[in-house]
């Protein structure tokens, strides 16, 4: 292996360990959001009977990423827990974004395009275009 390649491998190795920490932090943040949202939610609604036997859907504030974020900032406990769930959904998406950065740094046009297609498909799902 020649010198630049060694340096390159070293650099991506450092990036990867940073990614590992970033993903763990993301998972931790979503866990904290879910747990704190649930605790407050149960303090207010803990005595109610569960309503999951019949499918009624969820209120509008809990079904779109932007509305979830807006309601969570206003400290709505269900929305905080849902924001945590949303963060969890975004953890694998972040990993794909990171792969795109890696391919772009290597000037790998083919795999950058492949990764962009995957991101576009993920965006379609998250934006609710199929729902």
């Amino acid at each position, binding site marked *: 292996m020649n010198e630049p390649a060694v340096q390159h491998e070293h650099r991506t190795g450092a990036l990867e360990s940073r990614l590992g920490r970033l993903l763990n932090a993301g998972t931790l943040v979503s866990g904290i959001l879910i747990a704190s949202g*649930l605790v407050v939610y149960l303090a207010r*609604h803990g005595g109610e009977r569960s309503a999951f036997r019949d499918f009624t859907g969820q209120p509008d504030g809990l079904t779109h990423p932007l509305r979830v974020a807006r309601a969570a900032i206003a400290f709505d406990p269900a929305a905080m827990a849902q924001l945590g769930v949303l963060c969890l959904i975004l953890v694998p998406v972040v990993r*794909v974004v990171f792969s795109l950065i890696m391919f772009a740094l290597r000037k790998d046009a083919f795999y950058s395009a492949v990764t962009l297609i995957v991101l576009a498909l993920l965006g379609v799902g998250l934006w*609710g275009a199929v729902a």
Partner: protein
Amino acid sequence: MTLSLLTPLLFFVSVAAGLLGSLTGLGGGVVIIPVLVLGFGVDLRYAIGASLIAVIATSSGAAAAYVRDGFTNVRIAMILEIATTAGALAGAWIAGYLPLAAISIIFGLVLLQTAYNAARPPVARPFDAEPDALSTRLGLNGDYPATEGPAAYFPRRIPQGFAVMFGAGVLSALVGVGSGVIKVFAMDRLMRLPFKVSTATSNFMIGVTAAASAGVYLHRGQVAPALAGPIALGALAGAMLGAKLLPRVRTRTLRIIFGCLVALAGIQMIVKGATGTL
């Protein structure tokens, strides 16, 4: 049941599901949906939404162990993810039009196939030493850290693997499981990747695939935070615990017991679907 009783119960059940799923390598979804539907009487639509979140949690919990190990082949993962995410969007779209009974029967069949896989002993296969032309052109050949040093591998049958992965994506979204069994089948048997490479790569792909369909289900109101929240936390804890215990546990007996339980649940889901008692 009141929510303050249901929530901790869901958490502990999900710890067990995440633990079993990661120890047997079959994922948590095949446990969580039957427990919710058969045990707690939860509507299948809510159960599927919650299970997909648990699938992502399990994949992220295990990813912490995999991300720097050198086993994940990111190029293979990315090419196949075009198939699995497109399949997931198609599956989530189809699910909006299929009767619930049909989804229940399909899920039952998935459980039976999973049970069969769990009970059957794993077979070691020889790897191909000859590079495949398409794999070479796409730069998919790789090596992984074996005990005796880096070992090279040459994936083959990329188009067939791609097609099977599309199917895995459809199924994953339709019934809310990770489809890890199909993903590992495509990579182990069709593409002939070494077991550790296919397991780590599949784990990466499962989270991405489930994220595509989870987005669709979020918009449909099938992701309820009071249900998906405790399940996600439990599955996350269970998967992390499982990753720690895995090297020290004999999984053979566990897989057979687990297989029998999953088969029983599968028959019940088929009966429920066929008799319309969902």
